[in-house]
Every structure is written in structure tokens, then in C-alpha cells.
């Protein structure tokens, strides 16, 4: 497996937890991000993710590198799935191991925040009565500003 990848098949989180586990690690945090059915009262039928794959994988690797520089002794693996995903499917998995738990939690949260900032991946929400690329519009259903 690749430690930083964009995948089209269903994600098996344990693979990533196993990858980062080492004898020095006292903690592994495993985050899975899932497709949510309801967002602010609007029902999502499914999501379609698209990526600029080579750049996205580079940016995921860069996030891993940032974490390993920021928190010594950590090891990171991240995968993001693209294509059509159904409710509750895993869209992203982040595994971080570290000698102690606090850093494993912090570094894992840092990874998802950075993914949302720099990794060229886009999600389209498909509803009963329409669809929209998220992040690429000024207005969301219900008048929310996105």
C-alpha cells in the first residue's frame, strides 16, 4: 500500500492503523471521515468526489511530512477515496502513531484540517432536487454561506 494515496475502492481503516504501528508507538489514532446524510436540514443522497490525483497525493505526503517534523516520533498514513460514495461510506482515513497519546490526537486533527486547506479534492453533494460542488459556490441550500 501507499502511505499517502487517493483511492477508488472502499477504504479498510485497519490497513492504515497497521501501517503506522511500530514498537516505539504507545498510541495510534485512527480517524475515519464518513458521508453524512443530513447537513443543516438538507438531505444528501450521495456524494461524488473528484481529485487532481497526482497533486493530491503529493499534498497528502506533504501533510505527513509536516506532522513528522512538527511532532517527533510520529508516523502517518492517509487515504482519501474518490468517485461516488454512499451514506456512511468512509471518504478519508488518517492514521497517526506516536509514543504518547496526546500527540497522536493532535497530529490527527491537524491532518484533517490541512486536507481541507491544501489537498485538491472536491466533493459534490447530490440531493433530491439538485446537486452542487461544495466549496465552489457562494450559496448553499437553506441560505447558508459556504
Amino acid at each position: 500500500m501507499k502511505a499517502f494515496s487517493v483511492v477508488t475502492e472502499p477504504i479498510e481503516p485497519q490497513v492504515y492503523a497497521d501501517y503506522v504501528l511500530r514498537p516505539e508507538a504507545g498510541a495510534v489514532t485512527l480517524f475515519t471521515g464518513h458521508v453524512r446524510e443530513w447537513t443543516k436540514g438538507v438531505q444528501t443522497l450521495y456524494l461524488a468526489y473528484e481529485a487532481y490525483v497526482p497533486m493530491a497525493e503529493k499534498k497528502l505526503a506533504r501533510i505527513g511530512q509536516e506532522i513528522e517534523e512538527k511532532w517527533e516520533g510520529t508516523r502517518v498514513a492517509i487515504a482519501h477515496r474518490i468517485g461516488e460514495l454512499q451514506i456512511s461510506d468512509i471518504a478519508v482515513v488518517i492514521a497517526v502513531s506516536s509514543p504518547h497519546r496526546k500527540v497522536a490526537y493532535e497530529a490527527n486533527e491537524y491532518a484533517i484540517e490541512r486536507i481541507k486547506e491544501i489537498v485538491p479534492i472536491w466533493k459534490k453533494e447530490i440531493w433530491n432536487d439538485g446537486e452542487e460542488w461544495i466549496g465552489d459556490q457562494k450559496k448553499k441550500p437553506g441560505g447558508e454561506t459556504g
Partner: protein
Amino acid sequence: MIDVHYFAGLKELTGHEKERVDCSGQTVEQLKALLVDKYPGIEGRSIQVAVNEEYALPGDVLAAGDVVALIPPVSGG
């Protein structure tokens, strides 16, 4: 000539996944202006430009063979 890739909403707006644009020697900013002329719907949108898979600055100069991508606001996770 330079390959320009479009993603997500920009792919739908332009009707292309990629196209060849004659913009060698021009800056990223000049390319954006050229594309706004071609696709008025782009105007006012928040778009970053990647050159050879790295985010570029407005003043970066494009060279033949570069791979350019227009990156709308990302929404992974």
C-alpha cells in the same frame, strides 16, 4: 502550448477536462485573465493555479511543457 486542466465546478463551467492554451511566456495572472475572457463565468470566482502540481504565484511565468491546473476551493474530507 500549455495543457490546462479543469476540475469540479470549473470542468462543468468550461466544458473541458483539459485544453491546450497558447500562453508560454505569460504569467499565471495573465493566463487567468485570458481564461476569464474565454469563460466569463469564471470571473469573480476564487481560483488557485497549480503549475506542475504545485500552487503557483500570480507572477510566476509559464513555460512550454508546463502542466497547469485551475483549482477551485477544495472540499475534501
